[in-house]
């Protein structure tokens, strides 16, 4: 197995030992090609591998033991599954003869993980091991990527079994053949529609990141001059500072992006899955638009929203072909209509929907993120946990490059941020990596601070400490008449001291005047993990917001923006 992983080009194995994988650990001990990273909790291992995969595009590889090792990994597997991230997760299993006997540390791992993997395998014969590993890597990384679990009974890895090994160069699976190329006829049809648009909108998502197709997207969008919005998963696929970029769309997207969605006449969806946090009320979604949708997964198409021109294929290849078609025709979009459309969008933009009230006494979370952006010159890898801080990071840190914004969008897994940041730092040891988190989320995988110490990872933790499960509190304020049922976090630790106890640098920042200097100081410590505990305004809410059951044109704006709302 270790030889295979080496041949497959695996750099890191994020894992945690236990009885069922001890043979494998013994093999790990005897080699140093594949670096094993000892985590502190199996969830941490999966998120670390996931962060590594999101930052590099390569599959993240995990090794855990049977039973509790496998169940602890499930949250991380499901997280990767929802966001289509390639992982190969190797789980130990009790020996084949003991399967089904309620043996010590036995769980039906294949059964437990089946609903949250792209595919999984149980290897019962060592002769199948190499080819199954190869299939796992192939399935995880091709088509619409996703996690693959391989469950390996302990006897299969027994050191006494010796069989000849040859690296399987290729793998053929008659039941699995992802689309390689889009349908040219459909592309022509789409282009016809796209070029005849008067109020076009490009809506792109994680698929562009996954396919490393940012360049193709830029060419496409620029040659048309159309407004472009990204989903939470797509941020960075189109430059966040580009003049054609109108911000994120959806529940906490910008006013202009959502208004443009509502009023557009042609919507071009690219590698995005019309998620409910993006669509809002399906009945009110893009009421005037014909919809083109490019996606590699046919089941993403017309799943929630009926589309007019579907194109099944990898975004990169489809956009390359469509860009060539645009080049080859002298038809251009109606410049006058487009100008008028941009004027409307600029008017929506003038509301400045992300404005917030600055304070001299109390740290505003948005302000911390703006300073983080300045100090890192917009060029850091930012991971986040889940909650208000995640939305503010998405809103206030414009990403110009893909794979820089790393967060759990589909599952929304609190605890993801810190291990994911560590995974990124393993891949890019010299890069600036920051984890934007909240005091609620960070404790869900806080144990990984110990792993970070062991491997000397200089991650910067930006804890936006509002003493609340802020996102929950916000919903309670808006929808439950401010009945704050169990959203206040009592008895929080002294985070700076906690970080210090793990051997890191801890800081507590309580005044807005200290935000910038703290960040500067922290990023100057290039070889240390610095935990910055920012004590922020507990009452701040994320705006704008599309409430449940509302359409894109019915966003709730912050009070200071409300008076300027336009029709």
């Amino acid at each position, binding site marked *: 197995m270790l030889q295979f992983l080496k041949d497959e080009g695996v750099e890191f194995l994020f894992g945690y030992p236990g009885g069922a994988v001890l043979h494998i650990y013994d093999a790990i001990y005897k080699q140093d090609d594949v670096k094993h990273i000892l985590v502190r909790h199996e969830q941490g291992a999966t998120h670390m591998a996931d962060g590594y995969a999101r930052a590099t595009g390569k599959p993240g590889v995990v090794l855990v033991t049977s039973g509790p090792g496998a169940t602890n990994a499930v949250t991380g597997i499901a997280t990767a599954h929802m966001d289509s991230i390639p992982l190969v997760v190797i789980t130990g299993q009790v020996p084949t003869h003991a399967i089904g006997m309620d043996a010590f540390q036995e769980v039906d791992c294949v059964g437990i993980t*089946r609903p949250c993997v792209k595919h*999984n395998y149980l290897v019962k014969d060592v002769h199948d091991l190499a080819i199954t590993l190869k299939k796992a890597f192939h399935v995880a990384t091709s088509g619409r990527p996703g996690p693959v679990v391989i469950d390996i009974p302990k006897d299969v890895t027994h050191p006494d079994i010796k069989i000849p090994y040859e690296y399987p160069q290729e793998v053929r699976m008659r039941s699995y053949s992802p689309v390689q190329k889009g349908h040219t006829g459909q592309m022509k049809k789409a282009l016809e529609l796209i070029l005849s648009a008067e109020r076009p909108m490009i809506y792109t998502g994680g698929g562009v990141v996954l396919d490393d197709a940012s360049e193709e997207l830029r060419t496409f969008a620029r040659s048309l001059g159309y407004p472009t919005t990204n989903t939470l998963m797509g941020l960075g696929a189109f430059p966040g500072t580009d003049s054609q970029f109108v911000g994120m769309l959806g529940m906490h997207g910008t006013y202009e992006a959502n208004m443009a969605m509502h009023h557009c006449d042609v919507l071009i969806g690219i590698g995005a899955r019309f998620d409910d946090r993006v669509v809002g009320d399906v009945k009110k979604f893009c009421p005037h638009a014909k919809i083109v949708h490019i996606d590699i*997964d046919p089941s993403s198409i*017309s*799943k929630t929203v009926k589309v007019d021109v579907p194109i099944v294929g990898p975004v990169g290849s489809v956009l390359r072909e469509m860009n060539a078609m645009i080049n080859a025709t002298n038809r251009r979009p109606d410049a006058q209509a487009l100008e008028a459309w941009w004027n409307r969008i600029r008017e929506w933009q003038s509301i400045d929907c992300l404005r917030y009230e600055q304070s001299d006494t109390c740290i505003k979370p948005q302000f911390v993120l703006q300073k983080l952006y300045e100090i890192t010159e917009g060029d850091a890898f930012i991971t986040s946990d889940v909650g208000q801080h995640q939305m503010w990071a998405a809103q206030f840190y414009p990403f110009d490059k893909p794979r820089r914004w790393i967060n759990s969008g589909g599952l929304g897994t609190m605890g993801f941020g810190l291990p994911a940041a560590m995974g990124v730092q393993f891949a890019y040891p010299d890069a600036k990596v920051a984890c934007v988190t909240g005091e609620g989320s960070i404790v869900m995988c806080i144990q990984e601070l110990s792993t970070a110490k062991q491997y000397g990872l200089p991650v910067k933790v930006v804890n936006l400490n509002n003493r609340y499960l802020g996102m929950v509190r916000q919903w309670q304020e808006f929808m439950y008449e401010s009945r704050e049922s169990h959203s206040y976090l009592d008895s929080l630790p002294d985070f700076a001291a906690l970080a210090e106890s793990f051997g890191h640098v801890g800081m507590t920042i309580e005044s807005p005047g200290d935000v910038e200097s703290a960040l500067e100081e922290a990023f100057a410590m290039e070889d240390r993990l610095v935990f910055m505990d920012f004590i922020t305004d507990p009452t701040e809410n994320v705006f704008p917001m599309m409430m449940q059951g509302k359409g894109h044109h019915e966003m709730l704006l912050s009070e200071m923006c409300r008076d300027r709302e336009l029709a």
Partner: protein
Amino acid sequence: MRHIISLLLENEPGALCRVANLFSARGFNIESLSVAATEDPSVSRMTLVTGGSDDVIEQITKQLNKLVDVVRLTDITESAHVEREMMLIKVRATGEGREEMKRVCDIFRGRILDVGETTYIIELIGDSAKIDAFIDTVDDRLILEVVRSGSMGIGRGDRMLRV
């Protein structure tokens, strides 16, 4: 609408679970499901009967196709096809009812497989509608046990589902 979907599955442990899982996880309904090996030991063939709007059926076929163990799939209700289901039904057959039961069985072209002192076991083959009709015809109180195979189907003529 009622749809009959035929699938060729890799003959792997767990393949059946994946299909069943998909239906429960996504809230699709299954009317019946039957599966067995084929002449090719590496694949098994499954017939799934389901219902739903066109959009739902489209999602069902797309989601099934996405399963790595599904080799090929077709919705045979989209064109001419043959559908058969088999039922074994044990009925109370006493006194005058005994003769009457045999008559009903003959009308439906069923066969009596077992003649008990007070019971018959009847074998009936046909499409599901015919089997439903038989059950409706027989007095509920006389039905003792019902075993249905679930539908199987196959496309007519040159339409074939092969690896």
